[in-house]
């Protein structure tokens, strides 16, 4: 399990409770397994989430992230394992008695109740006095900027408004943990971007713990303090966004998050190079944690590859010690950046990207041009699995 402490790339500079071993986690999952028939959707999974965290479960569809969320909410019965909230096992507790609330992907707004009725629903179940319910509903609607929509029915609202009602409804009970199942999947791209920041602001203002399920990498990287990357019921890596991107712990994670050039080789005798890759010998930044001769993979992000008409100067400021000649096959112009598809003389495909900075930055490279690619030792990520 990856509980390696790191504060790298965290939006809140001083917020990293997972590195503090004196803190008790809010939610602790131990050996949790959920099988549908013989197929394990969640497989012997352990995880600790701390108070105030914005935690993202990220993975391809069918990786078990939604099942994990539904296990926490109580909509699925675990096959094995424990879910401890403040040290108390949640598994025997039925969903309606768990102090967690969920925001559904479909929003699941009650179509026969008004906006205020929807938000009040959870408070009514607690048997609170009417005046108090009205007060809290009012506050909640104000928080999501829907003060004047209390008497509308859900079908009279726009998609974005409905999403905010769902959020208000799940927050009004002040849950110990708010579970969000793809909360922005139904919004269009522009609105999604704004909502992500609103959600982060809300979470910090209320000081609540959020667990979000998403298949959208950029969404997870935007909102989360830590991301758990899942595949086939397993946690592949749990770390802050920057660490996931810059220090993936496996080929799978490196390949799943963003784009990557991967080269297989063997650890060199000096312990800081990889030999026998498709690009020949590659020098890496640190000592490799494997015996010389062991099979490893070198991962290089496209934006780390620099392109030039000539080989890098040996004494260049960047110490661009890995060089390769290639021919440009295709360019995809995306506005903010361009993506270049290249091929070495030996036919190895490569991908590089470059930000299009400056007014009408001259894009001097065209198809079939010969270029030199180079990257610094530090940009080479060595993966042993």
């Amino acid at each position, binding site marked *: 399990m990856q509980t390696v402490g790191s504060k790298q790339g965290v939006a809140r500079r001083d917020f990293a409770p997972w590195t503090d071993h004196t803190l008790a986690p809010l939610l602790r999952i131990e050996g949790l397994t959920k099988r549908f028939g013989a197929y394990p959707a969640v497989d012997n999974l352990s995880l600790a989430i701390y108070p105030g965290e914005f935690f993202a479960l990220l993975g391809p569809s069918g990786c078990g992230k939604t099942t994990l969320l539904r296990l926490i*909410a*109580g*909509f699925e019965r675990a096959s094995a394992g424990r879910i401890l909230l403040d040290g108390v096992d949640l598994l025997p507790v*039925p*969903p*309606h*008695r768990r102090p*967690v*609330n*969920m925001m*559904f*992907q*479909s929003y*699941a*707004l*009650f*179509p*026969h*109740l*008004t906006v205020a*009725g929807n938000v009040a*629903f*959870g408070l009514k*179940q*607690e048997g609170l006095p009417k005046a108090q319910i009205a007060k809290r509903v009012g506050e909640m609607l104000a928080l999501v900027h829907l003060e004047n929509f209390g008497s509308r*029915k*859900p*079908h009279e609202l726009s998609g974005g408004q409905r999403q905010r009602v769902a959020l208000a*409804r*799940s927050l009004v*009970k002040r849950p110990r943990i708010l579970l969000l199942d793809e909360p922005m999947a139904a919004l269009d791209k522009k609105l999604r971007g704004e909502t992500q920041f609103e959600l982060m602001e809300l979470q910090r203002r209320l000081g609540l713990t959020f667990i979000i399920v998403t298949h959208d990498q950029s969404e997870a990287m935007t909102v989360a303090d830590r991301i758990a990357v899942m595949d086939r019921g397993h946690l592949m890596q749990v770390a802050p966004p920057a660490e996931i991107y810059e220090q993936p712990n496996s080929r799978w994670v490196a390949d799943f998050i963003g784009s990557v050039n991967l080269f297989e080789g063997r650890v060199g005798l000096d312990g800081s190079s990889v030999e026998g890759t498709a690009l020949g010998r590659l020098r890496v930044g640190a000592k490799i944690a494997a015996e010389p001769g062991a099979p490893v993979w070198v991962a290089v992000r496209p934006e780390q590859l620099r392109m030039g008409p000539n080989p890098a100067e040996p004494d260049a400021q960047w110490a661009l010690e890995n060089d390769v000649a290639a021919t440009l096959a295709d360019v995809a112009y995306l506005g903010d950046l361009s993506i270049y598809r290249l091929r070495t003389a030996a036919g190895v495909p490569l991908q590089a990207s470059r930000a299009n900075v400056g007014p009408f930055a001259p894009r001097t490279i065209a198809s079939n041009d010969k270029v030199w690619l180079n990257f610094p030792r530090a940009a080479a990520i060595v993966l042993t699995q």
Partner: protein
Amino acid sequence: MRKLSAFNLATLVLGIAFLYLPIVILIVYSFNASRLVVVWGGWSMHWYAELAGDAPLLGAAFISLRVALVSATAATVLGTLAAVALVRFGRFRGRLLFAAMIYAPLVMPEVITGLSMLLLFVAISVDRGFWTVVIAHTTMALCFVAVIVQARLVDFDMSLEEAAMDLGASPGRTFMAVTLPLILPAIAASWMLAFALSLDDLVIASFTTGPGATTLPIRIYSEVRLGVSPEMNAVCSIVVAVVGIAVIAASLLTKIGAARGAPAGN
């Protein structure tokens, strides 16, 4: 907007005419002043006035209404329970037999349903009358109710119920506060269907009825076997009018209900 071809338009007009013309002719003839059904004697309300004095006929109509009210209500309750059991209880012991018993009466010829009911009542020596007809109609109609409500429940968005439980409502409260209000239109529609089926039934009622519990269809049937009569034209026209207005009103109501969402449940 698509335009209908001449052929399709003609088909629709002929089809609708075929469905409605016999009923229209029946209604027109009910206003015929002449005692001879086939001779047109001018417009008259005579036969309707005649009906007001026909005590046995009014009695039969009253019995039919009572049977339909009681059996439709019982069938709606039992059928809704059956639908909930089928959709929401997963696999339980005897589920296959349960499902078979719900679908079988739908295709069972009425003659056989009636016959078997009668033999049961004889076997347990129950005097046949109002209640035996009610039981028979309830049994037949509950299967229709179960099928309609089941279809609605299958379509039901499960996340609504999960949301209610997530917000602290127990399974029972969830059903009452969320599920029931949302399937109410389907339940109302199936009550109406059960009511109409009961009001309409001749065969099953003939088998299971006893002295003093002659329903309207039995009464009409015994008259109609002897041939067409102006009084029967009038009776049938009234039934058609009542049912027609009720169905149109109900379908308008459900449309409004669907447009506005079901009424608020607080």
